């Protein structure tokens, strides 16, 4: 049977799960509606039939309980993947992730590692209002002891899971909900990716645009529009939100001398703030202009489309911010 010519972000993730479940008997997936329902974003559709209810394990609505149980299972020799339906619900499990998964290795003097992968959907843009639209990646990126991934491309969606599973420490993976339907031609073989470096998704000379997850595609769209006006923006996809790859950022700014960060998180105490602080601390003399950022408006994300659109970074607002920074009309 020939594989279809096109593949989506969702399917890439599903294939990564299938490969992980096939290759390693210790791997299992658990979460709300991952089994019979097929996953609330349909990532795990079909996996129950292939791997059975032990390894594609439906849980009750107990985020704290099943994330904690996954930590315990990891300590007990398994390699759990926990799907938390969305980042919004992950707040119910924050205690186990922050107080247990992140601390255990250090607190035990190196005796116990927690090889756990937690996946969750994140982000706004589907008129789901204030309780289903958070971008709280930075909350997790704040915590020493965990690693934070944000696959923005189909290749990363496929490749990051296996690397996260191979990591001996807890890894939290954010999948922007608007990316699941992203589609591209299926690669003949999946490329190797890493979980160490940021990626330059579009080379440019005039400014470095730093983004991650769902904002990558908006930023690329802005960069294309700017190119038509003679501005060549370099687009950097952070990919790994903790630990941040400073070198790729500094290297880019050394060439472009300007940087703007695009972040769907709220501006105050955002990941953008962290990136800007690092550039300010370590690349200050490479800069020809103040650092800038485009973040979400400081408001619970509203339901009405025009309000939601206005609350989030958009290609037009990104392009406008770049032009302001460059002093262009």
């Amino acid at each position: 049977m020939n594989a279809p010519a096109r593949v989506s972000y969702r399917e890439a993730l599903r294939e990564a799960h299938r490969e992980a479940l096939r290759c390693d008997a210790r791997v299992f997936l658990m979460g709300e509606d991952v089994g019979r329902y097929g996953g609330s974003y349909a990532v795990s559709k079909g996996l129950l039939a292939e791997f059975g209810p032990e390894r594609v394990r439906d849980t009750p609505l107990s985020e704290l309980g099943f994330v904690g149980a996954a930590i315990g299972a990891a300590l007990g020799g398994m390699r759990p993947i926990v799907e938390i339906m969305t980042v919004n619900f992950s707040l119910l499990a924050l205690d186990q992730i922050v107080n247990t998964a992140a601390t255990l290795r250090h607190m035990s003097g190196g005796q116990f590692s927690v090889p756990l992968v937690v996946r969750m959907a994140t982000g706004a843009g589907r008129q789901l209002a204030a309780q289903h639209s958070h971008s709280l990646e930075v909350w997790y990126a704040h915590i020493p002891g965990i690693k934070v991934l944000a696959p923005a491309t189909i290749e990363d969606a496929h490749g990051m899971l296996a690397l996260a599973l191979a990591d001996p420490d807890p890894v939290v993976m954010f999948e922007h909900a608007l990316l699941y339907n992203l589609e591209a031609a299926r690669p003949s073989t999946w490329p190797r990716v890493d979980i160490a470096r940021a990626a330059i998704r579009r080379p440019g000379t005039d400014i470095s645009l730093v983004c991650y997850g769902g904002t990558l595609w908006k930023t690329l769209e802005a960069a294309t529009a700017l190119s038509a006006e003679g501005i060549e923006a370099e687009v950097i996809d952070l990919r790994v939100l903790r630990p941040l790859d400073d070198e790729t950022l500094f290297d880019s700014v050394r060439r472009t001398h300007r940087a703007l960060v695009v972040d769907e998180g709220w501006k105050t105490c955002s990941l953008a703030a962290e990136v800007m602080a690092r550039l300010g601390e370590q690349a200050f003399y490479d800069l020809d202009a103040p650092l800038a950022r485009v973040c979400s408006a400081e408001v619970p994300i509203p339901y009405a489309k025009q309000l939601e659109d206005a609350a989030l970074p958009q290609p037009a607002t990104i392009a406008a911010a770049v032009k302001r920074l460059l002093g262009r009309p």
Partner: protein
Amino acid sequence: MDESSLTPVPLAPELSLQLLRDMVRIRRFEEACADLYGQGKIRGFLHLYVGEEAVAAGVLHALAADDAIVATYREHGHALVRGMPAGVIMAEMFGKREGCCRGRGGSMHLFDAGTRFYGGNAIVGGGLPLAVGLALADKMQGRSRVSACFFGEGAAAEGAFHESLNLAALWRLPVLFCCENNRYAMGTALERAHAETDMAHKAAAYRIGAERVDGMDVVAVYEAATNAAAAVRAGSGPRFLELLTYRYRAHSMFDPDLYRDKAEIERWKQRGPIHNLSNRLKAQQQLTEEAFLALDAQALSEVAQAVTFAERGTLEPVADLLKDTYTEPVA
């Protein structure tokens, strides 16, 4: 001592003496900790187990070497009975490199991979889901081990308690839930925190076989835990023990203990777990006062050696501050 507390001890004499010895070891260890805290040798939070010794001693002797233990921030006694050397525990509290966690955990975070001792958890209820997961791993890998989880009645008000009991029962996991009901969540009395004050009843609502046990009687604890652990090991799902006990000392070294009646403390002291057992063993000619004093002297000597070991310990270099945040160093 009333007459009923002199009921015969139906255990092998050697085991009875071991239970007694371990309770005395905990008592002496905890008393030393209180002194050392006063001297400034131990810092941070320190929660003592004085009065509750029968629970750790009785339950842990009912478990096997490859079972897992998840405990709370009041866990020195559990670590000691489980087999962690007193010196290693004391060195941890002294913040020394020779401590079980190289001085990174302290009193509330004792860990030992060798005895499958998974902490030492300072988030009330935080250990419950962990024990459920350890049990899930055993079940998925076809091992017949027990994961024993200690927690207080205070934890039973947390969501983690209810989520964990539900998961363990739903998936029939080999967890032995051990609720150390000492009647106070820090300063909040049982009746002021729980609409249903019977913890075993809460567990029964999740269809978990549950039993209330006199936690001041180590024999009762040992027998109940032995039966419960056997049932768990046989694959019949989780079991729940509510161990009715009492702490004689304040919640922590910062607690002025103003929320309970001194007469109440005295009443519970009359039922002290060490006297409870030693008097019964004496009554059935399995223990003499001389033997008891010798056992106590042995415990004191073990603690003294532990303190010396901790005193002589070294400090982890500050250069290693970030060590073990990740398995492999991260830039």
